[in-house]
C-alpha cells in the first residue's frame, strides 16, 4: 500500500482550474518529485494534501485513510508536514521558538528528543537558536523551515521549492540534506522548479503541465528524456 495516494484530484481557485485530475502515489522511503513550470499546479497540489485548500473532487489517502475533510492541524497530527514555499518562518520569533512551533502537536519530552536530531542535521540552527528568525540569511531560513517541519516527526515531509532564491552552493547543501533526511527514514515529496537538482535526488518523478500529469518515470529516466530536457533542463 502506498504511503500517500492521490487520485483524480481537481482543485480550483474560483473560476480558475489549477489542478485538473492529478493522480500519483508515494511509497514509504521514497523521494518523489513533482516538477513543472510556474502555474503547473505543483504548490496547489501540496497545499491541498496539507489541508490548506479544499479540492473540488478526487481523493487523498494517507496510510489508507482519507485526509479530505480534515483541517490542516489534524493532518499534521497524522504525520504529514509541509515546508511551504517561501519558507514562511515566524520572523519575529527566535529560531528555538520556531522549532517549538513545529513540534506544537507533540509533548515537550518528545520535542526535546527531536530537537537534538534536528540540530544534528542543521548545526547552524543550534548556533543561532536564540536569534530572531527574521535576521537569518535566506539559506538559514530555509534550513529553519525544514527543521521546523521535521519537529512534528512526519512520516511524509513535503518540501515546496526549497531551493528558491538560494545561491547555487546553498542549493547543493539543501539537496544534500534532503538526501540525508531521506536516508534517515523520512519519505519526501519534493516540488521544485530546479528540475535538474530535483531529478538527480528523486527516486521517481511526475512532470506536471497546466494541472495535469504529462509524464512519469524514475529520476534517472527523466533526466535523459528528450522532452523533459527541452522543457525543463535547458536543452
Amino acid at each position: 500500500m502506498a504511503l500517500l495516494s492521490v487520485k483524480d484530484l481537481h482543485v480550483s481557485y474560483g473560476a480558475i482550474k489549477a489542478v485538473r485530475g492529478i493522480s500519483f502515489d508515494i511509497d514509504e522511503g521514497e523521494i518523489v518529485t513533482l516538477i513543472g513550470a510556474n502555474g503547473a499546479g505543483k504548490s496547489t497540489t501540496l497545499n491541498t494534501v496539507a489541508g490548506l485548500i479544499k479540492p473540488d473532487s478526487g481523493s487523498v489517502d494517507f496510510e489508507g485513510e482519507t485526509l479530505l475533510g480534515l483541517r490542516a492541524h489534524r493532518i499534521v497530527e497524522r504525520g504529514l508536514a509541509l515546508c511551504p514555499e517561501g519558507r514562511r518562518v515566524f520572523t519575529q520569533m527566535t529560531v528555538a521558538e520556531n522549532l517549538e512551533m513545529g513540534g506544537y502537536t507533540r509533548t515537550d519530552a518528545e520535542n526535546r528528543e527531536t530537537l537534538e536530531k534536528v540540530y544534528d542535521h542543521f548545526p547552524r540552527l543550534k548556533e543561532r537558536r536564540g536569534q530572531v528568525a527574521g535576521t537569518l540569511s535566506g539559506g538559514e531560513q530555509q534550513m529553519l523551515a525544514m527543521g521546523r517541519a521535521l519537529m512534528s516527526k512526519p512520516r511524509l515531509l513535503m518540501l515546496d521549492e526549497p531551493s528558491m532564491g538560494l545561491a547555487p552552493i546553498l542549493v547543493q547543501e539543501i539537496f544534500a540534506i534532503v538526501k540525508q533526511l531521506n536516508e534517515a527514514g523520512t519519505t519526501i515529496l519534493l516540488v521544485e522548479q530546479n528540475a535538474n537538482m530535483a531529478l538527480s535526488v528523486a527516486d521517481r518523478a511526475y512532470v506536471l503541465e497546466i494541472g495535469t500529469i504529462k509524464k512519469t518515470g524514475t529520476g534517472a529516466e527523466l533526466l535523459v528524456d528528450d522532452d523533459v530536457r527541452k522543457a525543463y533542463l535547458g536543452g
Partner: protein
Amino acid sequence: MFITQVLNGLQLGSIYALVALGYTMVYGIILLLNFAHGDIIMVGAYVSWLVMAQLGLNPVLAVILSVAACTLMGVLIDKVAYAPLRNAPRLSILITAIGVSYFLENGAQLVFGADAKVVPAYTDLQTIQVGDLALSFPSVLTVIVTIVATVALTLVVQKTKLGKAMRAVSEDMGAARLMGINVNSTISFTFAVGSALAGIGAVLYAMAYTQASPTMGMMLGTKAFVAAVLGGIGSIPGAVVGGLLVGFAEVIVTALGLSVWKDAVVFLLLIIVLVVRPTGIFGRTMNEKV
C-alpha cells in the same frame, strides 16, 4: 495634591490600558478593530450591579462573575459574529463589529432601561494611609491590579505554548496551521484573554465611577482604542503606555480647570500621532497579509 493627581492619572490610565490591551491583541491576531470591545465593559459593570445590588451577593462573587461574563461574551461574539467572516473582506468584519457594538448597547437599554444604575461599592475601604498621605484605595488597587495583569499577560504571550501560538498565528496564519496549531481555538483564546482584561477593567471602572449605563462602553472604548493606536496597535507595551498617556492627558487637562476639553485633547493626541508617527510609539510597519 500633586500625588493625588498622579494617582488619578495612573488610575484612569490603567483602566484605559487594560481595555487597550484587548483591542491590540485582537488586532494583532486577526487585524480586526473590534469596536464591540468597549461594550464588553458595560456588560461587566451590569453583571456587578446585578450580583450586588439586585441579588445582594458578595462583592468577590461580583468580581468573579463580571470577569467570567466578559470573557464568555468576548468568545461568544467572535464565534457568532466574526468567525463566519474569517475569509471575508476586512471591511465586512469591521462593519459587523460596529453592528455588534450597537446590538449590545441597545440590548442593554432594552433589558435594563436607559437610566444609569448605581453599582454599590465593592469594598468599604475607601482610603489607605501611607505615612502622611491618605490615598484612595480604589486608585491604588487599580494600579496594582493593572501591573499584575500586564506582567501576567506578557509572561503568557512570551513563555507559554498558547502564547507562542498566538504570536505565530498573528504573524502567519497559514504557516501556523501547517505547524498543527488550531487557529480557531487560538483566536478564541485571544478573545478570551482580551475580554477577561476588559472584565477586570469593568470592575475597576465601576469601582471608581459606581455606574453602569448602556452606552458607558462607547467613550471608554473609543479612548482605549486611541490609547492602543497611540502606543502602536498590535503592541502590548504600546497599549499600556498609550493607556497611561491618555489617562494622564485627561487628568492634566482637568487639573488645569479645562475639564470640558478633556475628550478633545485625547482626540487631538490621536490626530498628532497619526500625522507624526502613524504606526504609534511602539508600532512597526506591518506587512499587509496577502
